[in-house]
């Protein structure tokens, strides 16, 4: 397996919402260029007989487990708002979004 190219991992970091210091980059990129090829070895596994529809997710399905459509006002909305690092007049605040 080819080594993970730096620019690819830079792109992955952007996707991950992370900006890495040069030091971190060096360390993480070197780790990942060992880890990723190890992971990618599963590509060699012959799983062709397996039925794709059965792919592993939680496949418990109990109709009765669905929630009935009844509205209930949460009693923690104030507590949630109180945790906001920055808010005003009951609204959370972020730097301006570009539209």
């Amino acid at each position, binding site marked *: 397996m080819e080594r993970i190219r730096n620019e690819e991992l830079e792109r992955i970091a952007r*996707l991950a*919402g992370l900006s890495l210091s040069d030091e971190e980059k060096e360390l993480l990129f070197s780790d990942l260029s060992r880890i990723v090829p190890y992971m990618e070895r599963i590509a060699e596994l012959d799983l062709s007989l397996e039925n794709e*529809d059965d*792919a592993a*997710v*939680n*496949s*418990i*399905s*109990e*109709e009765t*487990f*669905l*929630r*009935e*459509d*009844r*509205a*209930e*006002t*949460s009693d*923690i*909305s104030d507590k*949630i*708002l109180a945790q906001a690092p920055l808010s*005003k*007049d*009951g*609204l*959370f*605040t*972020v*730097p*301006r*979004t570009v*539209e």
Partner: protein
Amino acid sequence: MDYETIVGLEVHVELRTESKIFCSCPTTFGAPANAHICEVCAGLPGALPRLNKKVLDYAVMTALALSCEVTKESRFDRKNYFYPDLPKGYQISQLYAPIGRNGKVEIEYSGKDDSSEQRTKTIRIHELHMEDDAGKLIHDPLENVTRIDFSRCGVPLLEIVTEPDFRSAEEVVAFLEQLRNMLKFLGVSDCKMQEGSLRADVNLSVRPIGEETLGTRTEMKNLASFRAVAKAIEYESERQWAIVKGGGTIARETRRWDEEKEASFSMRKKEDAAEYKYFPEPDLPVMRISDEKIETIRKTLPELPIEKKKRYIEQLHLPAYDAGILTSSKPLTVLFERTAELGGDPKEASNWIMVEFMKILNDHGDNAEDFEMRQDSLGEIILLVKDGRISRASAKALLLAAYEQGAIPEEFAQEHDLWLISDKEALHPIVEKVLQDNPKALAEYRAGKVKNKQFLLGQAMRETKGKADPSILAGVLQECLESE
């Protein structure tokens, strides 16, 4: 060289449920900011989605109404991206196994050339899926920041994706009107575009007539009315064609429609945002939809507008135009069907609605889609006329009173003494009095001036203040004239 416009739609519909798709918070529109948030919809650590049963039922119902194949093992997927209106950092949507696929809708529309001829066309539905809505961003110009209200987060949405089957704005608007009407008939959504409960994004490309391959498409957002949709399609087609004709290339991008400027503006280039890292939502089990469940829901499906229209024409023998109007809104259809049932005469019911009731709506500036009137009133009024108990003129007054004040016809007629006098005994003295008061006219009649009978009848009617049953009154006059 001439060109054609190719349009596909992505329509988002807010479902009319009491609670949100994945939590019990109310879905009420216009609540105070962040009043309706909890650990689930605000994306707190440790919170898990809990699917609302009604959302699934509504989705299956809509899939069936759109003639979709219902997916037997449907599943949610996470669509991952960062944006401040998205608290979890992902939207819970459906990519790999949406609830409905391969549907179709037959639309009827009038052509561009203003001919009254109706055309029909089948629009294919690519898929139908469920997802949660995002929060609302509010720009604060004073501090130049953005504020967020997460109350809308988790309001249940259905996304309906069509194939690129539209060739004109007329077709698109006809489809949207029909879709909106259908969803309201199903009772799954209010479809209020102004409140954002129906949102249509337009994917549009142009190509020279005769060309097979599709051109590069743009996606247009922020279309707040059907008029905006039509305007935007026309604007965007012309914009794209001008570029193509000039030898340029269309950028694959998302554009925002500006209703005031009646123009669209680039929001973002598509390449940047293409990576959503979709994967199956591990917090929700697979939804196994049994054949029995599908059949149970199919049985609860109401007769859809297009089916009703056909039935009105074929079985009730209404004109196509009338049938079209009567099925264009759910309250109107309900009124018509109840009126026809009570009055026993669909044609009569239709006439009353098409003429008198529509006039009342117009005069009040009200909308045929959400008026309010007691369902039985018009039927009762028609019966009163039919039984000769009130005049047609009184009937119109009664209908107005029923609409404006919610008057009950029987009671209102009683209160305002609208009853027709059909009692011969009661009419006899009145006629006698008229004859006595008009000796000259009577004498001339006897002398052979036959048309004076009409004058005397008019005088008698005036004497009853118009409340006499005209045929009975005429009979009584005749008797009196002959007996002298």
